[in-house]
């Protein structure tokens, strides 16, 4: 009991310390610019959360290091890109309803298609290497090459420009603070996805079984639950989240390209190491830390932007080697 209270205190102190740290840039940045950067950082954080949560859940339950997650992310972006191409009239229409409809269709299509791809990947490739991290890294890296080459076969090797639904483009100007509409949508999307995942994990039986599986897979099996079916389902959900991240990021960055997964996979691993492998809340907090610090530092010291996240990761690893949150949260 005392250990649990101490752990909670420790966690709350760390969070309070992080909160104070994120107010520090106010000493060097104008408040209005700070607000704009904060919204940009939160949006980037939420996009990273979509990618990192899949990596984290897959590792937490299945103990699988999935390096193919970046390729699944790219597939999600390309499936969404194709839906936008097919329904270009709705994308360009000056109608909130049609813009939202095409975004929802692209989202469902990307998640379902990449979820199915995830099922095939888990059944054919990953299942053979359970329990062996080295083989997992090698085989999922191999799968990445195949999946990226398949993108080149189906969509071509060149970068493509993504068309943004009209409602999502442009800015709001609230009291001289410039707020990009799409960034607000990204923040909302990330918050909704987090809430839905938490709701499933905490309030449904399947979610409770997944949390139990993160703690003790053998025991879950010995209670009559087919852990392999659960693994396949979790892998599909993780792949679906990667796809959603890919789609959202492609609208954010206005482009798709076959290798786009690699860059974000690196960020995703930094996020899950900071947040704690296997923890969805950890992924959210880690992603927000990375998103915010990247944006503040990019404004103040542009050359140090990429390095600051690695530095934060090293500090977190030194203080709490298991990350900020425990698995299963």
């Amino acid at each position, binding site marked *: 009991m005392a250990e649990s209270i101490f752990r909670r205190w420790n966690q709350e102190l760390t969070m309070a310390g992080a909160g104070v740290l994120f107010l520090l840039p106010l000493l060097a940045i104008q408040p209005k610019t700070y607000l704009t950067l904060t919204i940009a950082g939160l949006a980037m954080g939420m996009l990273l959360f979509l990618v990192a949560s899949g990596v984290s859940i897959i590792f937490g339950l299945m103990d699988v290091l999935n390096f193919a997650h970046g390729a699944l992310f790219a597939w999600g972006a390309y499936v969404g890109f194709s839906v936008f191409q097919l329904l270009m009239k709705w994308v360009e229409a000056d109608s909130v309803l049609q813009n939202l409809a095409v975004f929802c269709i692209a989202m469902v299509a990307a998640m379902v298609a990449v979820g199915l791809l995830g099922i095939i990947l888990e059944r054919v490739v990953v299942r053979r290497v359970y329990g062996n991290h080295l083989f997992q890294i090698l085989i999922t890296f191999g799968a990445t090459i195949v999946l990226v080459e398949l993108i080149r076969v189906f969509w071509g090797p060149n970068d493509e420009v993504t068309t943004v639904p009209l409602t999502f483009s442009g800015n709001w100007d609230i009291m001289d603070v410039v707020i990009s509409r799409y960034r607000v949508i990204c923040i909302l999307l990330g918050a909704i996805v987090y809430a839905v995942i938490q709701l499933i994990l905490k309030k449904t039986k399947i979610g409770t*079984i997944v949390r139990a599986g993160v703690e003790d897979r053998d025991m879950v099996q*010995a*209670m009559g639950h087919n852990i392999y079916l659960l693994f396949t389902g979790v892998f599909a959900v993780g792949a679906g989240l990667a796809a959603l991240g890919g789609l959202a990021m492609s609208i954010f960055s206005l482009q798709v390209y076959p290798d786009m997964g690699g860059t974000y996979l690196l960020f995703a691993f930094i996020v899950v190491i900071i947040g704690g492998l296997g923890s969805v809340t950890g992924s959210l907090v880690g992603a927000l830390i990375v998103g915010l610090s990247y944006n503040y530092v990019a404004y103040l010291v542009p050359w140090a932007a990429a390095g600051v996240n690695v530095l934060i990761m090293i500090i977190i690893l030194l203080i709490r080697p298991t990350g900020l949150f425990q698995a299963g949260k």
Partner: protein
Amino acid sequence: MVEVQGVNETILKVEGVHTHIGQHHILQGVSFAAKADAVTVLLGRNGAGKSTTLKTVMGLLPASKGKITYMGKEIQKNKPFQIARMGIGFVPEHMGIFSELTVEENMRVAMLVEDDATARRLERVLDMFEALRKFWKSKAGNLSGGQKQMLAIGRAIVNDTSLLLIDEPSKGLAPIIVDAVIEAINQIKEHSVVVLVEQNFYMASSVGDDFFILDDGKVVQSGQVEELVRNEELQSRYLGISKVEESNG
């Protein structure tokens, strides 16, 4: 090989089972039978293969050779979840509590079907272990050792369990809690067949009917527990129990 007793009334029959863990040959032809109307106790020193035997029956470790029959069906090739669904409950040595989940959530994970019969069994479990009712919404990780053991046993019998495999339920528990666990097992044996792995001879002799002693991955002695209680030479040779230790119980 030890002769399997009471074949006609056996619910579980283990015949010449071998199990390897990595390079190590742990079980080297274990054979025993659990009768439908008895508590079967597996005894032996540390490392004799008792826990490995239960894990092999449960399918958590693959049997490399031999046959395991439960209610007339061979199960040695089945997966653990299939074995559990056949009505076999398992309480491992480490209890397997999901410490980040509440007591209620631990129970929910264990319930394969949530019908009236399960609700009645849950009530029976909560009547048997009042502490679980009291800490129903608490994190299982915050329970005491004895309460965790109660939760582990409760989870294993909340389904329609015909056979319960329990691995060292007295380990690390205070004597008063051990008595409570003995009382619980005596109640459980009215509904389910129990196979118990135990090092605590006081507990084994309090609940056991038949015994099998394992040594170096093989069954070396078997019989009635009451005979073993009288046979000090056997206790001393295979279980390392002296008269003084036993009286300290």
